[in-house]
């Protein structure tokens, strides 16, 4: 077909082969493998990521940017290669200078608040947020608002979990920054970042995007998104914990003061002052997470091999199937939050059962080898908007298939029977 039309159709994801890469998902746990449906919290890591990290530790480890001996040079080369690969993965125009390694997406967002925010936002200035933000993109701005006397404005959501953008012009009028998630970790909503960025930029505001949920599951091009900063974490994209990423436009980063102080982030230190290092190292005080960067690089290579378009197509299919199964088998007993159509959302399905608290659902599901998340998902303003204190949430990765969804539904049946 590709030959006929001349366009390239992404190869479909071969989940059975993918799954073999993940030891925890292949393990026979009392006759049944784990149905892991919590990738929005943290994904599993394939063997090649673990192998890459172990191989680095066993053959190449030394501190980076310091030693002049061969091993240290190789460690530095591989660390910086991970940075460039990360930049290319998200379409960064200047991958070697625009990618800052942090601890996680939360630290990345805090970095923006501490450096750009402290330099540019003053009493009375405005930051625009959305009702669906994760606490990581709320609390840093609440803290800065308290410190500086900022005004926070909120873009509301409608009953389908979409942002209401009718009033965006008015909301961003006079604002310095718009902080918005690319994809909701609760609703799965994919927000029209480019559209928001255009309006924000016209009003003179910058846009910081929370990409923690979107970057692992959608092909990302920061130029097309139009944002000025984007934050994400390795551990939600088949990589290790302990390393996150902040991408920022080169000219913006170059103009920012350092974040934490210490080694690595300086060019010179005197008794009466210091000269900060060039970007991106200016924001990376102390020894960075080196093995974790190697692991992230391996995860990115793996995702590239699978093809992000194939990952997305697979997750749309799985999400559509799950939405159908939940509606068919549970009807009005289960309420699903967020956009009704699978192609308008990521592979995240938050739901509540009419009679069973999410915590209790999750407990029963665990007995059936089904792992879901229950709670407020670090999005309490959104929970209040939805009128719930908690939801259950099933979320997908490239290793999930329809069997996992069927097991979720079967276990939900068991829970309903148990609490009937």
């Amino acid at each position, binding site marked *: 077909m590709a030959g006929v039309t001349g366009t390239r159709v992404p190869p479909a994801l071969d989940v059975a082969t993918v799954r073999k890469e993940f030891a925890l998902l292949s393990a026979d746990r009392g006759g049944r493998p784990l149905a892991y449906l919590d990738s929005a919290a943290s994904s599993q890591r394939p063997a090649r990521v673990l192998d890459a990290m172990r191989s680095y530790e066993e053959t190449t480890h030394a501190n980076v940017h310091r030693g002049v001996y061969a091993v240290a040079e190789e460690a530095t080369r591989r660390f910086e290669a991970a940075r460039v690969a990360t930049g290319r993965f998200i379409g960064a125009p200047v991958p070697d200078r625009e990618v800052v390694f942090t601890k996680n997406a939360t630290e990345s967002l805090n970095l923006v608040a501490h450096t750009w925010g402290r330099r540019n936002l003053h009493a009375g200035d405005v930051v625009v947020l959305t009702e669906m933000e994760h606490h990581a993109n709320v609390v840093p701005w609440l803290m800065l608002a308290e410190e500086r006397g900022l005004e926070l404005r909120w873009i509301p959501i409608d009953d389908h979990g979409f942002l209401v953008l009718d009033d965006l012009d008015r909301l961003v009028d006079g604002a310095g920054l718009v902080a918005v998630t690319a994809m909701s970790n609760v609703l799965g909503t994919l927000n029209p970042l480019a559209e928001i960025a255009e309006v924000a930029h016209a009003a003179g505001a910058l846009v910081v995007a929370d990409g923690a949920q979107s970057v692992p599951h959608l092909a990302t091009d920061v130029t097309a998104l139009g944002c000025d900063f984007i934050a994400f974490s390795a551990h939600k994209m088949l990589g290790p914990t302990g390393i996150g990423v902040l991408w920022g436009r080169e000219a913006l980063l170059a103009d920012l003061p350092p974040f934490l102080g210490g080694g690595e982030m300086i060019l010179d230190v005197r008794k009466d002052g210091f000269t900060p290092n060039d970007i991106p190292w200016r924001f990376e005080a102390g020894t960075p997470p080196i093995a974790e960067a190697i692991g992230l690089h391996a995860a990115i290579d793996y995702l590239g091999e699978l093809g992000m378009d194939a990952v997305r197509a697979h997750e749309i299919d799985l999400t559509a199937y799950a939405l159908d199964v939940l509606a068919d088998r549970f009807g009005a007993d289960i309420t699903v939050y967020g956009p009704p159509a699978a192609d308008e959302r990521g592979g995240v399905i938050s739901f509540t059962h009419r009679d069973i*608290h*999410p*915590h*209790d659902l999750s*407990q*029963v599901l665990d*007995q059936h080898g089904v792992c879901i998340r*229950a*709670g*407020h998902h670090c999005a*309490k303003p959104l*929970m209040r908007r939805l009128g719930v*204190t*908690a939801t259950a949430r099933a979320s997908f990765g490239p290793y999930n298939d329809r069997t996992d969804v069927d097991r979720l539904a079967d276990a939900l049946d068991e829970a309903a029977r*148990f*609490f009937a």
Partner: protein
Amino acid sequence: MAGLEDLYREIILDHYRSPRNRGELPSPPAHRVEGFNPLCGDEIVVSLQVEDGVLSDIKIGGSGCSISQSSASLMSAAVKGKPVDEVRELIGTFKAMMSIHEATLPRDGDGGDDHEDPSLDAAPVDVGSLGELAALQGVVKFPVRIKCATLSWNTLAQGLDEVAPA
């Protein structure tokens, strides 16, 4: 792995389905205190009325899972009408039960005394004195849920401290 029946005893499910002392008391004169479980979002509102050193009335509001709701319901039934001193003692006994290490729970043919971890040598808890509340004992086998069971008790303790400092 501990089974669901260890956690969801019949009496717990009963109190979850038919919670006792549900609602709020007019405040004032009653004292109103809120508790939150930051992990799961459970919220509880305890209204308490203390008169002449006695917890004369108590109501429970808020929302949460079966464990937090049934624990609150069982608590309200156990403390209503009791002298504040006794209520404090009961809170202490209940929380002690919730901190018993799973390994020391009594089992068949096992007195539970032969452990070596000194941290387990807490004062013995008279579980028998807890009556129906002992049904919540199985929660300690599910460590994540302990905070669900203790939420209402911590909230009540805070409320008592606010209206009747010890």
